[in-house]
Each structure stands twice: as C-alpha cells, then as structure tokens.
C-alpha cells in the first residue's frame, strides 16, 4: 500500500495552502504582529478566511460542519504555514481542539460548528513544568458541593492561549503529581470567573500564555472523556499535535534551507559566488539529505496516525526527534552562512532560528523523543 504519494485532492490542498501562506501570511505578517505588540499574536480575520477555505474544520466531522479529512491533510497545511512562520490557530484549534471537543458530550460537541467556522479558538492548557512533562499536574479538580467541579492551579506555556475562547484544561482528581492515572480533562470558557490569563512575550513572537485557575467552577457536562482516565485523551491529543508540529517544522526547515541556497548563489566574495566554495557546498548537501530523511519520517508519522498503525507512536517520536534536529541544523547553518547579516533582525533568518529553538522544546525535545522512541521499541 502506498503511504507517501499524495492523491490529486491532497496535492491540490497543499498547493492552495502554499499560495495562501505566500500571499496572505508571509513572514512580514509575523513581524508585524511582533512590532505592533499585538496582544493575540495572530489575526482572527485571516483565520476566518482560512475557515472559509475549509481549513479550520478540516478534521471536524461533516455532521458538525467540518470536512471530515485526516491528519495528513492537516499536516499538509501545517507544512505550508511553516514555510512562512505563519502564526495561525491551526495547531491549537483544528488539530488539538477539534479532537478534544469531539471526545466530549453533546454540550461540548456543540462548539464544533463555530470552531469549523473560524469563530471559536481553542488552547490546550496542560503543562506545569519548565519542560514537557505531560502527566505532571498539580492543578486539582474537586467535586463541587452543588454538582460540577472546582478547578485550582496554574498552567504554563499554553500555546495560542492569548487568543483562545475555549480552554482544554487538564487537572488531577487523584494520585501523585506525576502519575499518569488520575487526570481529568475539561473544556472551560476563557471568560469563566477565576480564569486569569497572562500573555507572555516569547522569543519566537508567537502567542503563549500562563493561566491561573482560582476556584473555577465547571459543570459536569464540560468534562471530556472519563474522569481519572484523562491521560488517554491527552495522549491522543499530544500525538496528533506532535505530528502536525513536525509538518510545520519540515516546511520551515525547507524554506530556510532554500533561502540559504539562494543567498549562497547571490552573495559574492573573493570574486565568486560563495556557494561555489566546497566546504559550504558539502554542508548544503548534508542538509539536503537530512531534509529528505525528515520529509519521509514526518509523512510516515501523519499517515500512521490516520491509519491507526501499531507503529504510529514510534514514528511520531522518530519524526519529532528528526524534525527538531533538522530545523535546528538548517536554521543554525542559515545564520552562519549568511554571515553578518544573518544575525541582524533585518533578515527573516533569525526568526526561523528562534522558532526552531522553541519548536524543539514544544511537545518534547529531540532528546525526549529519542528516548521515547527507544522505549517504544525502535522498529528495526
């Protein structure tokens, strides 16, 4: 069975996404949000445009106004958005949010049509440590005396938190702070009393928040999945999110690599294009190979999740380890090979370099996923 070749429809989707990113979401868009200190760090208007193109609800089922497509399709769009470092809610809302809400009851699923319409943005609040530790959770959920739940705690590094309307929040009903068991997941309206969100200014200029929950009351209808078994849902969300992030990193790596090749061709020193220097050529060839390998494993991971293959988790970790390393490599080499102007803010290269460092830590570093890859069994 083929797993790498795209169908004509998928190919068309990817082309459309590329065109949209180039025209509507060039790197200048991110730069503009940064320089204007935009509080949301994304454009809701552009997101509505993307929703009209069917991308916000790509993976939402048709009954709820979506396109009912797979993670591969989401990945293709992510890859193209990665090329221009486009800050959109696609990962937080359409990859993570849509999957999370679909796991809820009718009241929760009722948010899906608005999500698919680009009107409702979601963010996942689960992290509490300085680095990815998915089950570590000190945020508590207690049964309220009058029914429903009460949430207390603090979440860090909430991706796309500043723009979110709805928060998917992980809390603990039992067990020790690092136990996998004993978690529960809620969908909580951002405007609920006791939710205190602080937007952070990150090095990659994306929207990230720290959120405090102080005696936040949540009705029982807003629980996603079964209380105590929240980790099962969380795993599913993280697995899909990681594969989609890999696609973004692949696109970004490819773009920064080609920008570097372009520079090597144009920049002259000692009377010749610097791209004719053998040492730089060999480094470019090395990057080319790394990119090809990354392309394969990222695609394989997306497809494996869609097909529920038994090796899906192994492939996801392999993809994250390699996509992280390749993005770090290509963006770091881009800075060095651009020489002096590579370290100036005048060029976009630096924005890719910063994004690579953030992407590495996001959803588990390269080292984290290499280790996970080994624990899952390396598949060889």
């Amino acid at each position, binding site marked *: 069975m*083929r*797993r*790498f*070749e795209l169908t004509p429809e998928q190919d068309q989707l990817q082309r459309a996404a590329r065109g949209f990113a180039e025209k509507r979401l060039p790197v200048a868009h991110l730069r503009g949000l940064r320089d204007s200190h935009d509080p949301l760090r994304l454009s809701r208007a552009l997101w509505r445009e993307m929703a009209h193109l069917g991308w916000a609800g790509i993976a939402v089922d048709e009954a709820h106004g979506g396109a009912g497509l797979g993670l591969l399709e989401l990945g293709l769009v992510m890859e193209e958005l990665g090329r221009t470092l486009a800050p959109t809610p696609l990962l937080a809302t359409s990859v993570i949010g849509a999957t999370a809400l679909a796991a809820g009851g009718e009241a929760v699923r009722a948010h899906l049509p608005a999500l698919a319409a680009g009107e409702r943005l979601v963010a996942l609040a689960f992290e509490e440590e300085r680095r990815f530790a998915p089950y570590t959770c000190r945020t508590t959920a207690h049964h309220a005396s009058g029914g429903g739940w009460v949430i207390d705690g603090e979440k860090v590094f909430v991706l796309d938190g500043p723009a979110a309307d709805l928060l998917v929040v992980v809390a603990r009903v039992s067990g020790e702070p690092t136990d996998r068991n004993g978690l529960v997941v809620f969908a909580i309206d951002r405007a609920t009393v006791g939710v205190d969100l602080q937007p952070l200014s990150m090095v990659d200029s994306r929207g990230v928040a720290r959120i405090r929950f102080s005696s936040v009351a949540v009705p029982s209808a807003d629980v996603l999945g079964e209380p105590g078994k929240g980790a099962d849902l969380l795993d599913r969300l993280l697995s899909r999110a990681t594969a989609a992030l890999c696609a973004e990193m692949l696109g970004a790596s490819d773009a920064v690599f080609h920008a570097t*090749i*372009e520079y*090597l*061709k144009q920049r002259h020193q000692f009377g*010749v*294009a610097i*791209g*004719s220097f*053998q040492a730089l*050529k*060999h480094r*470019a*060839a*090395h990057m*080319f*190979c790394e990119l*090809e*390998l*990354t*392309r*394969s*494993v990222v*695609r*394989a991971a997306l497809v494996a999740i869609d097909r529920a293959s038994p090796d899906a988790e192994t492939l996801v970790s*392999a993809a994250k*380890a*390699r996509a992280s390393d390749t993005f770090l490599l290509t963006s770091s080499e881009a800075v060095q090979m651009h020489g002096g102007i590579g370290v100036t803010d005048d060029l976009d290269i630096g924005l890719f370099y910063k994004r690579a460092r953030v992407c590495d830590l996001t959803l588990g570093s390269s*080292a984290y996923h*290499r*280790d996970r*890859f*080994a624990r899952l069994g*390396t*598949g*060889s």
Partner: protein
Amino acid sequence: MSRSASDEEFRAEVRAWLQANCPASMRTPFLPGDEVWGGRRRTFPSDDARIWFERAVERGFTVPSWPKEYGGAGLSREQARILDHEMRAMGCRSPLISFGIWMLAPVLMEYATDEQKAEHLPAIARGEIRWCQGYSEPGSGSDLASLATRAVLHGDHYVVDGAKVWTSHADQSDWMFCLVRTDAEGPKHDGISFLLIDMTTPGITTRPIPLISGSSPFCETRFDGVRVPARNLVGREGGGWQIAKKLLEHERSIISVMRDRAPEEAESLPAMLKRCGDASLRDRVIQAELDFLCNRLTLERTAEAAKAGRGPGAASSMFKLYGTELNKRRKELRVELAGYQGLGWEAPGFEPGELQITREWLRSRANSIEGGTSEIQLHIIAKRVPGLPD
C-alpha cells in the same frame, strides 16, 4: 497497473515451481561465503546451491525479464515483479550473484552489436562467464576520467598497457569490462573507450590487495602489451565515458543491494546494548536506529515516487552516502558494544560471531570509498541542489 487473470495464473505457477525446485536450505539468509558467483571456475558451497543454480539457469530465472534467446525467461515487467515478490516471500536466495547481470548486461543491451550480445549475454545469464570491472587506476581515484591505461589500435587488435586497481574478484573472473584511453590528445573525457578483455590473454597479471579487514576482495591487474581483438570494443571508440557514467550509477545501487544481501547480524544493536550495560552508548545506538528507520522510509518513498514517474535527482548519491556512512556507524557501534570481545583478530579466545563483528567493522570502512567516496557523493548531491553554483 491492474492485475490480469493471467498474472494470477502466473503467480500460482511460479509459486508451485519455486516450492518444487528451490531446496529448503536455499530459503535461508546467506551466510558468509555462501554466494554463488558462477564463472569457468565456479564452485558451490553445497549441493543444494548447485541444484538451485542449475534449475534457475534452466528456467531462465537468473535473468527473468531477459529475452529467451539470451538465456532469460522472457517475463513481462509485471511477471518479473511477481516472481521477485514470491521469491522474497519464500526467502529464496539469489541463485547467482553476478556483476555481469547487474552491471555489464544493461550496457550491452544498450550499446553492443548483435554479435556481441549473442556472444556474451547467454554466457552471463547461464553463469558460465564471471566478469569483473576495470575502472580505477593507481593514479586515478575519484578523478576517474584521468585514467591512463592505453589501448592503441594495431590492425584488428588493440594493444593495452597500464594497470587497474579495485577490480573486485579479478583473480577469480574470466573477463573484464574495462575503460581504456584510446586517445591521449584532446579533452580527457573524449579519449576513453569501453573494452571487453579476456583475462586469459597473455600479458595480464593480477594480484589480490589485502585490506585492513584481512580479506582481499579487490585486486590490482597489470596489462603489458595485451592484444585485444578490436571487435571487443563496445560502442564507438571514444564513447566510453558516457557508458562509464551509466555504470557508476548502477554500481551505487549495487552497493546498496549487496548490503541488503549481506549476512544477517546475529543480534540487533538494542539487544547488544541491553546485554552490554554501558548506558553511555545508548544515545548513539538510538540515533543509529532512528537514522536507519528514516533511511528505510526514504528508500520506500523514493521507490513510490519512481513508480509514479518522479524521483529526487540526487537519490542514488544520497543513498550511497547515507547508507554507507550509517553502515559504518552501526558496525563501529557493534564493536564498541562487544567490548574486548569485539577486538579479536583470530581464534582462540573469540567466537566466530565475535570475529565477524570485528571484520565487518573494518570492511565497512571501504564502503564510503568504493563506488565513489562520500566526498564525491556530497559533490554530486550539491550539484543537484537547485541553484547551487558549480
């Protein structure tokens, strides 16, 4: 391609034939030295190997898709695919390992005269003649086109003088396909011709070159006034470089194929790691496993793309580079994991499997040199990266 009813009939037929004709011991992975190479002085590691070879030759299955007149089975592309699939499924060994089939034959098919084809192809198909290649010379390594072995036409013979190195198994081969210089003036690429040379011709001496691994798969071959009939020229005089470039691409794939057919490793890297207990090697073992997986996926992706009529330009160089560098890393890790027992040269005191770890590690060092060094592959890849100046 949709499968026709007759294809399914064919599948049933070859399956039955394989069941009946491929001995059980030939359905196991190769062990070192088990390959059948054919040739005038051919030997067989076992009776089963001889039987399997003879039956495959008879049926045309050493070269299934060749025309019957050249010793093939005349299979269609789809039939050949089916046969390959069935042989893999059953674990059948290749009945014949042959540079003649893999490297020379495609050149003959494209460039040779009908007389040349009739003379050489059936003998290749039947494993009667074993071929070696004569490209590299002591003075020309990566700069192949600088080769200096002269072939001067005297009447109806070329007289050949010079030396070739890295001629794999030249000491056991019957004929050599050889690049020679027929014109010492003009551009260096234009003076090269492709010549077929019978190794029994007077004036040829061959010496095996011992490698650091202790084995000697390569030879140095010297030519002193060797008279080669002019009819053994393939293609036109001075047209050898074009043929050579095609052959080098074949060679890169061969090195991958050979690695596929290499003896199975007794123990996986992660299993060795567990037994070794040296946690400090863990990250490198994981990285090697991860890269192995990604390389495998990329081979698969490239194959899919090729079927769809597309392919990355630099694919064969990329796999040559990455595959051989990765293989070196893996073989070296095996030595490190084996500890002192991976550093033995000869028994007593070391198990055969342990000595194999040592020898394969040293042998792997040649992978990134033979068939074009890693540096040359990087150069070729860089040339295919769009826009990078030459």
